[in-house]
């Protein structure tokens, strides 16, 4: 391998690593607030790519009708609540999906890249809170394992729906830019740079959100002590919905970013999501900076691995978990209770 190839692989690895980082952040937010290991996040990523791809080719994606249908269920459920709940339900689950549907009907035929991307984000982001509402909230107090099994089952539900909506073919999302420039010996693609820029913006944005806004502080409180947060009047259901909303927004964004580089099919999200996991596990499901380092490492290793031993690429990435877990085991003082 010469320097040129190495640098090209490195660029590739860092780009995918940035995507894994986004997913790891989403997983960490959801896990720390709700204890759910959000396996279907990767499937929402694929939804992001495929929705943007469908819109860009002038079609209305099945995910739009899914959003309308499940929103209607949420609307009906919220109507039985108090007046404030009902009013908010009508706004979020009635007005919002109608507006998105109308926008899609009018704008999809124009096939404008920026519009397709924004619409895809608008369609996929609400799916996180809806998933929380119908799959996890009814069992919010169950064990981590029970929640994990629900998450696994949801993964199958989403890929089943993905196959119905998009068929087995791969699709690409519209690129933000198709330019490129030379940096020394390497040709840096504009999209790679855009991915990194988006990633950095999002990380800084989340930092601000968690540090400076009341919603961010509420989430941090809910994450550090669930019972304590509940006792001071923090609505566990609302903070769960917010965490899932952030995660699905992140997934959708990651989907439209990576989808412009790599074509994805309906079932490709799971593997990508799992690599986000590997990164998150490196952070022990607790630490954001460690997860960031882990994500870049996974991306680069995968990229180099695909050059040397492409057949064993997955094996290399997942076997990497073992030494990390040994290290985590040795670091943790005592076995935790499995309650």
């Amino acid at each position, binding site marked *: 391998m010469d320097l040129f190839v190495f640098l090209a692989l490195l660029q590739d690895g860092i780009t995918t690593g940035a995507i894994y980082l986004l997913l790891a952040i989403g997983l960490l937010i959801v896990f720390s607030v709700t204890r759910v290991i959000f396996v279907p996040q990767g499937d929402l990523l694929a939804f992001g790519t495929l929705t943007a791809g469908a819109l860009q080719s002038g079609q209305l994606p099945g995910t739009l009708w899914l959003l309308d249908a499940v929103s209607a269920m949420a609307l009906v459920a919220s109507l039985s609540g108090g007046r404030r709940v009902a009013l908010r339900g009508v706004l979020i689950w009635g007005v919002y999906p109608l507006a998105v549907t109308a926008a899609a009907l009018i704008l999809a035929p124009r096939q404008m890249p920026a519009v397709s991307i924004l619409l895809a984000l608008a369609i996929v982001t609400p799916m996180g809170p809806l998933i929380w509402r119908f799959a996890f909230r009814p069992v919010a107090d169950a064990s981590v394992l029970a929640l994990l099994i629900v998450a696994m089952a949801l993964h*199958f539900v989403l890929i089943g729906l993905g196959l119905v909506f998009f068929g087995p073919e791969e699709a690409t999302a519209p690129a933000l830019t198709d330019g490129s420039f030379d940096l020394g010996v390497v040709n840096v693609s504009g999209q790679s740079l855009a991915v990194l820029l988006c990633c950095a913006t999002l990380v800084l944005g989340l930092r601000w959100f968690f540090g400076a806004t009341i919603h961010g502080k509420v989430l941090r409180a809910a994450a550090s002590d669930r019972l304590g947060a509940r006792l001071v009047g923090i609505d566990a259901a609302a903070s769960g919905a917010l965490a899932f909303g952030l995660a699905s927004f992140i997934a959708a964004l990651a989907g439209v970013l990576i989808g412009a580089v790599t074509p994805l099919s309906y079932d490709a999200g799971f593997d990508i999501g799992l690599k986000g996991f590997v990164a998150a596990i490196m952070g022990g499901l607790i630490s954001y900076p460690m997860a960031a380092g882990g994500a870049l490492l996974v991306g680069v290793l995968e990229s180099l691995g695909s050059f040397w031993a492409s057949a064993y690429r997955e094996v290399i990435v997942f076997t990497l978990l073992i030494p990390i877990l040994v290290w985590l085991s040795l670091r943790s003082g005592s*076995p935790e209770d*499995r309650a």
Partner: protein
Amino acid sequence: MTAERKRWLVVAVAIGGIVLIPAWLPEFYVTLFGYVGLATLVALGLVLLTGVSGQTSFGQASFVGLAAYATTLLTKLAHSPPIVGLAVGLAVTGTTAWLLGLVTARLSGHFLALVSVAWGISFYALFGTLPLLHGFNGIGDIPPLRIGPLFAESRRVNLGVIWGAVAIVMAMSASLLDSRMGRAIRTLNGARLIADSVGIDTARLSRAVFVIAALYAGIAGFLFAHFQRFISPTPFSLGASIDYLFMVIIGGVGSLWGAPVGAALVVVLRDQFNDWIPRITGRAGDFEALVFSVVVILLLQRAPEGLLPLLARLPRRHSPQGELTPDVVDAAPPLAEPANATAPGVELLALESISRNFGGLAANRDVSFAVHANEIVALIGPNGAGKTTLFNIVSGVLSPSAGHIRLFGAPADHLPSRRVAALGIARTFQHVKLLPDRSVLENIALGTHLSGRAGLLRAMLRLDRAEEAGLLAEARAQAVRVGFGETLDVPAGDLPLGQQRVVEVARALCLRPRLLLLDEPAAGLRLAEKQRLAALLRQLRAEGMGVLLVEHDMDFVMQLADRVVVMDFGQKIAEGPPERVQSDPAVQEAYLGGVA
């Protein structure tokens, strides 16, 4: 009919069924029920793992695959007899599971589950890429099993062998759950404090259960390879692993019967779906996975126990006794007295300048005192004085930030709870900790764990019956000793709080402790019950036991204790006989906020 004859009848019916049913079944169902049987084997392991011990694996199919490929390589390429393939296959799956368990042993339960996803994918990728395994083309013409002169080439014979294996594995699993080790495994599911307090090695035991589940999957893999006679990576994918888990959830994780019920439902329904869905929708696809997943989510929300309890309305059995009826148990010889009986008045426990900090908060500062044989020492103090922290340090749940502990004259700093229990120190908990669904007798018998020696294998082969009878006799004896009047067969969770405390004391006494640690034993007890408890503690003191108790009930403490240690703000402020402590101005100030 005696229990013995009943058991033989069940065995005879099972054998008859296994021999006759395959002979009568239409060809189509022979194949289908073969798959049900193989899936049942894997699911049985998952019931033990998920339902009983509270761990989960999303990688069981890869264990099936490991054993299947092992026996295939050996019998087809090396021409070994299948028995060698079975042995090597089980060795490989068992060792792999043991190593994976070792890696995640000290992390919380969901790490094992997550790692299982990763290895599920890794093994699947390996099966598909290793040149030796012929990738997705698979390997065919695997030699059939031979039983004596009989070649098991017919699917009907295979079906009999599969269900014979299911029957044996099921009987062994039932025996395991109905034993000392079975009781211990139940504590893994969110009751680790109990496990530690009675000396169960939880890390090793969780790993052992994980290995057992992997071995069951390995048996299924061996049978699969020789009956299918063709293997490829597809049936060992992550999706297949998750299918097994779904079977267990649909059938019911709480009972061994959930495994065959869930396996049958999923395998048969999936077969039907494959027939019907393309006819309805006009296209092929993963629709049955979608339907099953929605069913699983709804079940976990509405009926986490699975379908079996709904289908069968089974009366739940709480007695662990099996054929060990009370008269058999009572006739069992009592356990031998521990050899390390204590000399009167000797020092049992000594704390030297113990401090414990939680971040910036000092819960204990420089606390020293001792407990001797034939002595009841009470630890009192206002709420937040640091009594429970100190109690947890003595019992090994917490380790001190500074200072030294001596147990029975030997240094014992940083000993884990389990080792403290093994030294002869038993404890109860401030908030009662029992297995609420299990019988009172079973809960008390947990305390006898260290008295028994029969391991997992002996329990599975039912070679532990004499010892088990002795352990249950001990549990009954301790129940009588603490004056437990109610029947021992009711679920412990159904008892009133006071009675639950008494059950905890009986469990602690089963350890034959030299030092007994009681955390607020009188809380929630009625007056008569308190008097009975006081009488019991006096009797134990007379027998040579040392007792350290934390208690808020001053009447109870003052009439009982030989010595009282008073704590406030983490420090010892007084120590001495009850009368003297009561008149101590520092103590009065701590309790009454200053004396006028």
